[in-house]
């Protein structure tokens, strides 16, 4: 396991270097001249002298690769410069908003697993009966529902019509319910459908038939012989939908006035506040990569075949 983990971590370094290069280059290839935007946001008229001074101040007059290396070096020390708008340290600002996003995204993730696993099992056990039909229909709707629209529908029903839940802001659990459901709904639908399919496939395996022939109880067969195999694809899928979950969180934050990095990013894009945008993109990608690493490790832990293939354990 240790060697597998080290190998996976070593792969991250070139990936993140590539990511930082893309972020840096795209900004320079993009439409804007950061110096002009900096002047605009500082409310300084863009005269030739002012532009030259701004370029020198922002370090834009140096060769491109020097700029990249110095940006990367600073980023490694968690120094992403100062926001063009607020003049505050970008990293501190990002870290200030991050916990709210992680909290919301984390709850949505737990909700996804907590709903999709029982639903998938339920549907597979009652294949083609009413439970299965309900789950399949909801999943069919769920994969097509725009999350932001679902968010509004929830507000409409539970805040405006019924008055049960607060429509926006943070506070107790009541504030989290609607945003988390809006984010989790699509992943739940996809996961439940996938788990149903992989449960059905696992049920058809010969060792399950053999377990039944040995006289094991239905509950024991499901838990020990079907579910353990069927859960593996779910772990992979959870990793694949993590990106969607992050995207969903960023969008939903804007509906429910959730004080997270999604709103920070949107206002940075409006203002062309490039340091904030760079910091946001790089660190969100890094968090995403770390989550994927966690999922891979979980996967290797669940499925001994992967550990063995990586040469970590002796083949029996």
């Amino acid at each position, binding site marked *: 396991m240790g060697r597998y983990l080290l190998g996976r971590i070593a792969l991250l370094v*070139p*990936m*993140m270097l*590539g*990511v930082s*290069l*893309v*972020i840096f280059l*795209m*900004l320079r*290839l*993009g*439409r*804007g001249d950061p110096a002009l935007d900096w002047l605009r946001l500082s409310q300084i008229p863009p005269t030739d002298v002012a532009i030259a001074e701004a370029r020198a101040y922002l370090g834009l007059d140096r060769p491109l690769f020097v700029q990249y290396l110095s940006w990367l070096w600073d980023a490694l020390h968690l120094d992403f410069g100062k926001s063009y708008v607020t003049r505050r340290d970008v990293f501190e600002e990002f870290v200030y908003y991050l916990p709210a996003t992680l909290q919301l995204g984390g709850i949505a993730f737990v909700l996804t697993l907590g709903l999709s696993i029982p639903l998938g099992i339920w549907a597979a056990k009652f*294949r*083609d009966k009413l439970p299965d*039909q309900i789950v399949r229909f909801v999943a*069919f*709707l769920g994969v*097509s*529902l*725009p*999350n*932001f*629209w679902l968010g*509004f*529908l929830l507000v*409409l029903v539970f805040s*405006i019509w019924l008055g049960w839940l607060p429509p926006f802001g943070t506070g107790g659990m009541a504030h989290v319910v609607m945003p988390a459901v809006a984010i989790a709904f699509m992943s739940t639908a996809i996961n439940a459908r*996938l788990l149903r399919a992989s449960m059905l*496939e696992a*049920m*058809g*395996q*010969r060792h399950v*038939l053999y377990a039944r022939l040995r006289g094991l109880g239905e509950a024991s067969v499901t838990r020990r012989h079907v579910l353990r195999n069927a859960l593996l694809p779910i772990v992979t899928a959870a990793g694949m939908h*993590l*990106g*969607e979950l*992050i*995207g*969903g969180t*960023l*969008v939903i934050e*804007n*509906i429910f006035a959730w004080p997270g990095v999604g709103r920070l*990013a*949107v206002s*940075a*894009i*409006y203002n*062309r506040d*490039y340091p904030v*945008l760079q910091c*946001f*993109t790089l660190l*969100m*990608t890094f968090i*995403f*990569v770390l989550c994927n690493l966690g999922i891979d490790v979980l996967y290797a832990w669940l499925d001994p075949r992967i550990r063995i293939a990586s040469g970590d354990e002796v083949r029996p």
Partner: protein
Amino acid sequence: MNDNCNEAILPLETTVHAAGKRNWTMTLALSILAVLALAIIAAPVLAPFDPDAVDIASRLLPPSQNHLLGTDHLGRDVLSRLIHGARVSLGAVALISLLVLVLGVAIGGLSGFIGGKVDQITMRICDVFLTFPTFVLAMFMVGVLGTGMTNVVIAIVLSHWAWYARIVRSLTLSMASRDFVLAARVAGAGEFRIFGEHVLPGVIAQILVLTTLDIGHMMLHVSGLSFLGLGISPPTAEWGVMINDAREFVWTQPTLIAWPGLAIFLTVMAFNRVGDALRDRLDPVLAAEVC
């Protein structure tokens, strides 16, 4: 490999039953697509009003005989904007799908077929683009390029092409190892011709099916960006823009937000349904791999 087991355990009636449900949802999906096609072709004829005609005097009207779905905060007819919005929303998605498909086939196909150094370098570049969470990359691209229709199309293409390149490459590799390619090579066909005539057609057929499945997903990304105010810019009649416009009025006029959302939802559902069916019909093997 477990085919025999499955057949033994699953009763025959399930397939018949599944077919019945399939037809019902399929009919719905095809009807939605037909309505959309009609809206795209005949928008100016079908729409009762000019979608951009501002009339402050009749703002935020509830549905009536004159305005079947009411009017928005600038007094524009919601139904007309929905009908015209189909052109913009679906047009953007169609363009994105086409570009991503062309890029994916060109980059992934050639990289897989040529192999060696070219393949390695291309795949490392793909890996980097696949490292980003897709929506975060799309947001970043919009931030760098600016908002508006063209930039949104570029942003979504840039954040999705690597997925396609990766899939096309693996399809190309499996296609290139088939016996008929070997036969063509033995018969003395040039590499370029083998790629164009023997490998590419099979790859394109499969990737087209996957693209259909992905159209709904693209549409959600485009409208998600528009909704954040980062996509297609107002006053264009586009569904995501309409939802964003209606945000302020969710308390007073909730139906304003309901209609464009419903349009997106039904469209995405129709494409997903047809994509599912195409996959099952044309390529059972692929269906098993993807599911």
